């Protein structure tokens, strides 16, 4: 969002028509501040917090879990506490990590709305919020994963986690073969956001 434009812009000005819903948003924010429900400084700080949550925070947790078995155990126990060890604020809603094994591949969805560990990973991708993914992944996970280019062997069980309560889920994928020489930072770079949802697997880099 930042910076390619030459001319400075006010942050709330976009090259988009000012819709009824945008006006409602600005009006509500103004009104709630005028009523003292929150302050302009709190709104600004919250917007900054929103920008800080990115998939990179999740990939760091995965890479650390791959190199440190004790951390892995703590991550599987309590993601929020494990994240705090790395200086990451994962928010107040409890997040659980579900670990892939040679027998089970995990996938996350929210069929009721679009629950997602957004305090840790940032906003979910658009497809995660759409009807097609939410309707189909519980019933035909293999067909949906194939649309993402992920085809799993028949003997692997796919377990879909439907976030229907106040718990959020992230997948802890398995460390790919051929990565023994890599450090934590390089390992984190193998993990994409979709790996944390379960619609992709981390891939070892091709050898030159």
């Amino acid at each position, binding site marked *: 969002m930042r910076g390619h434009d030459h001319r400075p812009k006010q942050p709330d000005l976009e090259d988009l028509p000012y819709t009824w819903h945008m006006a409602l948003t600005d009006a509500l924010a103004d009104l709630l501040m005028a009523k003292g429900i929150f302050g302009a400084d709190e709104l600004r700080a919250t917007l900054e917090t929103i920008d800080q949550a990115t998939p990179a925070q999740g990939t760091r947790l995965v890479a650390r879990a791959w190199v440190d078995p004790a951390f892995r155990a703590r991550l599987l126990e309590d993601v929020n506490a494990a994240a705090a060890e790395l200086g990451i604020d994962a928010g107040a809603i409890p997040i659980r990590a579900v670990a892939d094994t040679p027998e089970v591949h995990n996938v996350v969805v929210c069929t009721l709305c679009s629950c997602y560990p957004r305090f840790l990973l940032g906003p979910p991708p658009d497809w995660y919020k759409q009807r097609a993914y939410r309707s189909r992944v519980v019933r035909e996970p293999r067909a949906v994963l194939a649309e993402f280019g992920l085809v799993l062997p028949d003997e692997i*069980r796919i*377990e879909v986690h439907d976030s229907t*309560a106040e718990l959020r889920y992230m997948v802890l994928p398995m460390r790919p073969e051929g990565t023994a020489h890599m450090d934590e930072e390089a390992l984190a770079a193998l993990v994409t956001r979709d790996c944390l949802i379960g619609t992709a697997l981390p891939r070892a880099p091709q050898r030159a």
Partner: protein
Amino acid sequence: MTAPRFGPGDRVRVKRWDPPGHVRTPFYVRGHVGEVVTVVGPMPDPEQMAYGRTDAPPVVVYRVRFRRRELWPEDADPHEDTVVVDLGETWLEPAGTGEEARAA
């Protein structure tokens, strides 16, 4: 009051209720039998929180695993894939032994 009624490994049937109002039990598991994976513990009751009643008693939440082939027996896909859903205790009843439940 909030001591869990079920434990890991218990087979539970989801009530086939269809009340108005805000509930967090997906339609696709209602009436079906699953197995308790973990007891999450007491959590605020979404059915009350949705109407602003933040002082309502909590509900014990369970992670319950369902076999995809049991939920949608008409589907041809033979894979033994599973779905885990987080459900409140008010929606669950005992489903008997595994053999009975599978035979049903």
